Structure formats: structure tokens, C-alpha cells
């Protein structure tokens, strides 16, 4: 009986493995139609289109090209309303803890709190940045097939 259950589980796990690849960042999709929260999604297709007409980086000392070419999507979630901001922050923290993201950097500077998390995988990598200012909370989720080296290359100028 125990063997039969194990075999059934094995079959289900193998079958489901093909479906989990794109499920990771879907956790943030629920903000798409949430009240008082603005949600921006830029797909791989649109990033590719944008890449074709790329211009030099606007910020000196920053090279975003290394990472931009390896991204499959960007999600930007913003809220100004106090209750929505609190909910957004708590939800994101829960999600990051549940999906085992690791803290990359935490910056507390001039009333602004910035937390950067990462989850580097073989099939999909994600860097999530949460910026909490006095009047606005923003979460940016960068997903794609990149390594930590690609992320850190942006700073080596």
C-alpha cells in the first residue's frame, strides 16, 4: 500500500514538474486588479522590442544592458494609499518568505527603506526590490534566466 502511494506521488510530481516553471512570479499577479494599487507588467516580447531601439543608459555609472537582455518580464506594483501599502508590504514579505527568497541587500537611507531579495534558479531567477518611501510603496520584480553575476554587473562601472 505504502509503495503504491509512493508510486502515485512520483507520477504526479513528474507530471506537475513541467507546469511549475512559470508559476513562480505568478504570485505577484494578484495585484493586477487590486484596488488602490497600480500594476505594470512588461513582457519578454515587449522587452525584446524595446531592446532593439535601446539607447545609452540614462544614469551614469550604471549599465543595465547585461541584465535587460536576460529578462523575461518585469512587474512593478505601486501604492500610495496607506492601507493598501501596508497590505502590499505584508503580502510581499509573506510571499518572499514562503517562496524562500534570500535577502540581497537592505538599505535604510533618508527616510527610504529599500529591501532587495533574490531567488536564483536553473529555470527562472527572480530579483525583487521593495522600496518604502514616506508617501509610496513600490515593489519591482525582475524575472528571467540570469545569474547573480549579471545582477552585480550593473554596478561595476
Amino acid at each position: 500500500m505504502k509503495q503504491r502511494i509512493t508510486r502515485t506521488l512520483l507520477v504526479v510530481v513528474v507530471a506537475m514538474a513541467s507546469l511549475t516553471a512559470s508559476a513562480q512570479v505568478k504570485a505577484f499577479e494578484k495585484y493586477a486588479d487590486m484596488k488602490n494599487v497600480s500594476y505594470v507588467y512588461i513582457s519578454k516580447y515587449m522587452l525584446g522590442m524595446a531592446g532593439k531601439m535601446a539607447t545609452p543608459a540614462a544614469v551614469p555609472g550604471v549599465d543595465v544592458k547585461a541584465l535587460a537582455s536576460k529578462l523575461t518580464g518585469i512587474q512593478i506594483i505601486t501604492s500610495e494609499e496607506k492601507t493598501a501599502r501596508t497590505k502590499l508590504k505584508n503580502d510581499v514579505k509573506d510571499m518572499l518568505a514562503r517562496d524562500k527568497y534570500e535577502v540581497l541587500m537592505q538599505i535604510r537611507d533618508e527616510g527610504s527603506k529599500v529591501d532587495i531579495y533574490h531567488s536564483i534558479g536553473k529555470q527562472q531567477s527572480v530579483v525583487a526590490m521593495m522600496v518604502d518611501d514616506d508617501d509610496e510603496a513600490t515593489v519591482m520584480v525582475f524575472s528571467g534566466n540570469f545569474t547573480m553575476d549579471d545582477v552585480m554587473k550593473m554596478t561595476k562601472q
Partner: protein
Amino acid sequence: MDKLNLEELERIPIPEELEERLSKKIDEWEQNEKQTTRHFLLPRAMRYTAIAASFALVFGVGIHYLQNEEPMNLAEQDTYKDPVKAQQEAERALNMLAVNLNKGLGHLEKAKALSDKAENSLNKQLKALK
């Protein structure tokens, strides 16, 4: 007529060891049949892989159709239809990430510089004491 035939048949002598030979033959046929059936069965691991592949196929096709039926999912739609605006927003986001990473690393370098300074000062004092 049937009765007569039956009676006649009963009178025919049954050869010795007929039952034994028949039984042996039947066993032989059964054995052959089992061997033939085994040839057609896949090994256990292959069967489970086939089942898993079938599940994956069914789920994959199902999800593909579901996604096609719901093109209005807000989260999966590009916010910008204009690539220029998408590029501007993507660059803004990436620049913000890079600037914050630089800021964090800058603090790290400052901390390192302070630590080096303290270490040098300590070394100097230790040398003076010697």
C-alpha cells in the same frame, strides 16, 4: 440416434495416459501464452514514465486551452502597447535597481574604508607600544 452414438462412444476404449498427456499439453500452451504476453508488457519503470508523460500531456494541453480561453487575464497582458513607453519604464525600473545596488555597495565600501582606517591606526599604536 444420439443415445446410440453416446453408448457407442462410451464403449470405445480410452488410451492409457491420455489424461496425463492432455494436461501436459494444456500446461505447455499456458506457458507459451504467458511468455508471449510478457513480451508485449513494458518494464515497470517504462509504464510509470508513460503514465507520467500522459499526465503531463493532458495537463499541458488543458492549460494551453484554458490560457487561450482567458486572454483577458490582466496580469498577463502588457501594460504598455507602445514599445517606447515600455522601454522607458523598464529602464526606469532597472536604473532604480542598479542605483540602489550601487548605494548599498557604496555603504559597504565606506564601512570597509573605516574598518581599514581603524585597523591601520591600531597597528600603528601597537607598533609604538613595541
